[in-house]
């Protein structure tokens, strides 16, 4: 009898003891860009897990069951939103059994709600236009201005969830934003000559980068989002590249490169492949990632 009572007591203690104030918040970010920002803002007060790899196309991540394990322990879920993770996150979220991170909960932060989105359709859309995002374009983290806003939003949510460490979240958010602002000023100065430059992209994943730098994406290798290129469209893109004197074909490394290289060769342009996301696992920061991207762009265009 005594033994049973002891067991019950132990179980009650284990299950109902309040969270240690010094315990780290468990954060899960769907994509590495959110994860690196959250890691900088959260610092030692958080533990961050990224579900997608930087080498993966974020539209098509496998809903591997063990990812639900990370979600089951999370205090805060950061998702890119705007439909980017629609093909895989809902399965994991339901399977996580974690009420704290379900939509509408304080632990659910759709980061697309923190920034202004581009390409939000203003007319009726359907899939004859390709695999479009009715909520707007989700690839906003290529714009450091929006990432400043994003960091502020993440910091605010962390301070709400973990008010004991509010001062730390504040200090790190300020430090991140200040650092990024300074870096951005340098990047903008370095790439000032890019304003008005015409480029070609593979997928509609670079409008935020283009908007920030004042670059024009004149064509995409994909005829419509998510639809593989066909010969007549590629011929059209090649014509556009020549007509617009395009100097660079720019795309993420997770897209196939053969067609892009061909167009670059024939149009006398540079083919530039960029890493899709910061390398979260290797400890890369957002600023370091963007610094690399800016450096590649400058080098490719000889500026």
């Amino acid at each position, binding site marked *: 009898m005594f033994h049973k009572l002891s067991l019950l007591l132990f179980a009650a203690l284990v*299950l109902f003891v309040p969270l240690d104030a010094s315990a780290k918040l468990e954060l899960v970010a769907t994509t590495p860009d959110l994860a690196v920002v959250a890691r900088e803002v959260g610092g030692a007060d958080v533990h961050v897990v990224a579900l997608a*790899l930087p*080498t993966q196309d974020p539209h*098509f991540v*496998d*809903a*591997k*069951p*063990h990812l639900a*394990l990370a979600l089951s322990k999370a205090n805060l879920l950061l998702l890119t939103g705007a*439909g980017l993770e*629609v*093909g895989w996150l*809902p*399965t994991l979220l*339901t*399977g996580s*059994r974690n*009420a*704290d991170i*379900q939509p*509408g909960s304080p632990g659910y932060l759709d980061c697309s709600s923190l920034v*202004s989105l581009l390409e939000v359709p203003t007319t009726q859309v359907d*899939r004859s236009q390709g*695999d479009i995002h*009715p909520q707007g374009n989700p690839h906003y983290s290529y*714009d450091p*201005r929006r990432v*400043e806003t994003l960091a*502020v939003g993440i*910091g*605010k949510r962390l301070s*709400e969830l973990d008010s004991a460490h*509010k*001062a730390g979240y*504040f200090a790190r958010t300020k430090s991140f934003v200040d650092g990024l*602002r300074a870096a951005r000023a340098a990047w903008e100065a370095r790439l000032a000559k890019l304003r008005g430059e015409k480029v070609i992209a593979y997928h509609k994943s670079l*409008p935020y980068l*283009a*908007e*920030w730098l004042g670059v024009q994406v*004149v064509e995409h290798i994909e005829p419509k989002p*998510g639809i*593989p*290129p*066909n010969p007549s469209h*590629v*011929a059209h893109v*090649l*014509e556009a590249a*020549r*007509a*617009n004197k395009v100097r660079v074909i720019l795309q993420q490394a*997770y897209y*196939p*490169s*053969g*067609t892009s290289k*061909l167009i670059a060769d*024939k149009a006398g342009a540079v083919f530039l492949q960029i890493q899709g996301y910061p390398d979260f696992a290797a400890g890369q920061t957002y600023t370091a990632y963007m610094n690399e991207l800016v450096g590649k762009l400058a080098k490719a265009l000889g500026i």
Partner: protein
Amino acid sequence: MNFPYFCAPGAAFAGVVFIVSVAHAQGEPPTPTTPTPTPATSSSDERDIQAALAADAAKSDQPASTATPASSGPTAPSSGVQSLNPDISVIADFAAAAFSNDTHLETGAHDPQHNGFNLQALELSFAAAVDPYLRFDSHISLELSGIDVEEAYGTTLGLPFRLQARLGQFLNRFGRLNASHPHTWNFSDQPFALGRVFGAEGNKGLGGELSWLTPLPWYVELVGSTMMADGDETSRSFLGDTQRTVHGPKDLEYLAAAKQFFPLSDDWSLAWGMSGAFGPNPSGPGNRSAIYGSDVYLKYRPITSQSPLVVSLTSEWYYRRRQVPADIIQDVSSYTELFLRFAERWATAVRYEHGTAPFGVDGKVTDPLDPEWTRARQRVALALTHYPSEFSRFRLQVSRDMPGWRAASWAGFLTAELAIGAHGAHVF
């Protein structure tokens, strides 16, 4: 202390607002571009384009699978439209079929059934959160002969201790294939084992399920459920077509399953499950049926570099034993399939199936459910699938059925699948 960036009207807050405002003010809106007319591409350009496209098509890593609109387990398709309407999707599967033997042995309700054109399935799905505690999923199959409620269930979202409950009409989570819907399959018909053991529709019914995500370091999910053992097409091994009344717990079907997942590396994954289904068998007073199963799914998909390649191996085994007057009828059925996505929009798969003859305690017996099944049956199928987009699919499938008790026969299917509506989430 407030978080100054957001809550206090202090200098720091104003500073950040200023930073963000200034930053955005510096951006310029993109200018719409209309490419000017240019000279046409040359014939050598065209040849080079064809070659580059072919190479890229073989390298893209976009998944060549039709979308899964809200119909493969408790998933939550999202919608971009701000409304309280549920997510709605429709998936249609059509087939042109040719059988060398008109009395073919296809066992699935959604399998092509006759020479000529077939409507395999027209599935209408609705899904939405009910409230902060529950979500609801339903999949209605519209058929030329009527309507079938494939599934309609509620799922809890946040029970304590990592528990989750489902209540309603659902496909039992026995093994890997039973709980899935035809549009997620690599073939246009179901393995005969599923029809032999559970029935044409798979094992489903009205009931309740409780599952537990254990706190072990690797993924282990334990599932227990109970449901009505009704229907020849859903509870065949429990003789579900027999008229009977539920007098107590012994008249219901019970399922126990353990599902494990091992991320062997970023590129390699292994899922392994074990299941058991137990229920009444009114062939005699107190008789019971039991089905034991094990399933393995090994997948290779390189995600650390750009590649279209996906290779998966699925194998599922069913051992069934049923008490009948004066004997125990047993059999083993299995299927093993190898799937290969070799290019961005192309995949192929091969499947081998085997079903033993029924055997009793003392040797060979006749199974009253399949009296003609007196020897082992084997079947081999080969499929080639093209996915124009994530929402459409065309498949050519050829199979050779070799039942030991009659002459072998061929079947050929050309199938088309079209999906519209909300983009559902895929399950692994």
